[in-house]
């Protein structure tokens, strides 16, 4: 009897042990299957990325399997893919507001009840599709809008479907104008009731925050939220040293750089740095007294390139460290022949364009090559072009094929030059019927030049959407 009882109890024990071991074994199998399925689903998403890299339009909405095509590249194939071990994998593509939503699923069934599945999700966007720089050899006016009275336009920036234009207020203007440019052939004034309350000079934009320099003697730097353009919401302001001296601003990373007119007064500096990492505030970091007017700032890396009125250093180069300290770059400032002021600058990558006031003995447009690490121009150049007028605005396309220059005159107020071969030869120009050129802005997404005269915003387009430079 004891033996029978013992055998029974032991058998039950062994049965329990066996079941538990099988359960443990199944857990191990499930864990392994899940890991393998994750890999397969991830590979399906990689395949979709690979197809996208070839052509965004090739990633069509629907369910896709995948395989290696005869040329050895991943490609969509059928609606599912079966892998050794009875894993079936597919990726389902659907469109979303941001691009394409991808959902990869891998399912398996091993035996009677050992089944399962995993899902991985990701998104793809169309950032690989190349934009185009058109043929700017014969541009034309796409659209324009003229303001009555004396708007005395100063600066233009494009933010989404809006162009922001600063201007004077002392002559009855509004100081800041907002145009809907969703149809570039018909720019339309929006929020006409907005009034800056003082002259508006240059602007800088970070995200949906606008920093505008004004003639307000107690609040030269004003900050607005643009989350609901064309409405602007005032955020804060900063009173620069002196009165109404702020002229130019630019932003790199989280630092806002501001240049002013020269002041001989003690304690009135000309170059300022603010921390704008918090879009709701301005935090003063430092400033320097460079004893000359700064009318434009170009930025790349940690270097700031200043169009300066300094007769012996028309192109100043400052290095700004993370801590906010400012040091003059080695080899700077650059003293360019003549004493005409530097008044406009555009910097992108390793190219810098400097515009100067008109002079009889100088060429007003100067191009420099910059070291990749930033800093003062080094070997090669500079290259010059005679503009016959003060160059008040400069820009370049992202391929650095064309330079765009606005001059403070009616004749050839807009000039387009070839800069790729360093010749700076004029390829096209536009002469105003009245008024004179002010600043301009090149927008790469639309491949358009936004050009200001004293009272008109012009939008120029290239002759053809595809150019060859």
């Amino acid at each position, binding site marked *: 009897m004891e033996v029978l009882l*013992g055998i029974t109890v032991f058998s039950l*024990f*062994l049965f329990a*042990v066996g079941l*538990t*071991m099988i*359960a*443990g*074994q*199944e*857990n*191990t*199998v*499930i*864990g*392994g299957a*899940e*890991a393998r*399925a*994750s890999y397969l*689903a*991830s590979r399906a*998403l990689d395949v979709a*990325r690979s197809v996208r890299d070839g052509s965004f339009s090739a990633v069509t909405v629907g369910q896709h399997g995948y395989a290696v095509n005869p040329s050895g590249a991943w490609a969509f194939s059928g609606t599912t893919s079966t892998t050794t071990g009875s894993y079936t994998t597919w990726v389902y593509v659907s469109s979303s507001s941001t*691009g394409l939503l991808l959902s990869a699923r891998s399912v398996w069934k091993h035996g009677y009840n050992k089944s399962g599945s*995993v*899902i*991985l*999700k*990701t*998104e*793809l*966007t169309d*950032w*690989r*599709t190349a*934009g*185009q720089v058109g043929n700017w050899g014969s541009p034309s006016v796409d659209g324009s809008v003229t303001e009555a009275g004396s708007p005395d336009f100063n600066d233009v920036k494009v*933010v*989404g479907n809006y162009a922001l234009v600063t201007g004077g207020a002392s002559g009855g203007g509004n100081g800041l104008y907002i145009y809907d440019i969703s149809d570039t052939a018909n720019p339309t004034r929006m929020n006409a009731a907005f009034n800056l309350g003082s002259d508006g000079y240059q602007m800088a*934009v*970070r*995200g*949906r925050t606008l920093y505008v320099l004004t003639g307000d003697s107690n609040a030269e730097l004003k900050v607005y939220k643009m989350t609901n353009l064309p409405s602007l919401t005032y955020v804060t302001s900063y009173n620069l040293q002196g009165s109404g001296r702020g002229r130019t601003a*630019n*932003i*790199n990373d*989280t630092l806002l750089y501001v240049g002013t007119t020269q002041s001989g007064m003690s304690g009135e500096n000309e170059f300022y740095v603010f921390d704008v*990492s918090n879009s709701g505030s301005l935090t003063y970091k430092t400033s320097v007294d460079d004893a000359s007017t700064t009318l434009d700032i170009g*930025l*790349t*890396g940690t270097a700031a390139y200043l169009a300066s009125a300094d007769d012996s250093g028309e192109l100043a180069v400052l290095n700004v460290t*993370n801590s906010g300290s400012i040091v003059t770059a080695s080899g700077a400032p650059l003293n360019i022949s003549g004493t005409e002021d530097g008044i406009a600058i555009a*910097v*992108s*990558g390793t190219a810098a364009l400097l515009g100067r006031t008109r002079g009889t003995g100088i060429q007003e447009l100067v191009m420099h090559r910059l070291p990749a690490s930033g800093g003062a121009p080094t070997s090669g150049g500079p290259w010059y072009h005679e503009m016959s007028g003060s160059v008040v605005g400069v820009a370049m396309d*992202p*391929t650095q094929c064309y330079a765009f220059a606005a001059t403070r005159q009616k004749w050839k107020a807009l000039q387009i030059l070839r800069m790729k071969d360093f010749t700076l030869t004029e390829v096209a120009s536009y002469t105003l019927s009245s008024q004179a050129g002010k600043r301009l802005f090149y927008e*790469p*997404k639309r491949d358009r030049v936004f050009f200001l005269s004293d009272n008109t915003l012009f939008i120029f387009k290239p002759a053809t959407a595809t150019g060859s430079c």
Partner: protein
Amino acid sequence: MFLSRARRGYVFLVSVLAIGAIATATTVSMLLLGIAAQQSGFAILQSTQAWEYAQTCVERALQSLRDDPYYVGDSTYTFTYGRCTLDAIGGAGNVNRTICAQGYSGDSIRRIEVKVARIFPSTTIDTWREVDSFSYCR
């Protein structure tokens, strides 16, 4: 004879106990291994999903930079199985921009940092790598 039967019972009892102990230990080990394997499988799934969400954030950032050169990042996007965050986009203008993205799913975090050589006319990438901690973003 009596002693012999008692000894055999003792041996049997000890054997049963020993086998039982070994079986119990083996079973517990297998159970724990199974649980650990399942947790590993789940962790791999979550880690892979976190990676995909980090990729999603980079994709969104690159597209946003093409749509709006003033785009600053500094955003969080929430999804079905987790979320991703973008640090502030580094640099300014068309060249030398940096993107730092983190993907989260469950307890898993994956980080990707990207150095963009230029945005227009075609976006070119200098570096696209997974990192333990960001070096491009302050």
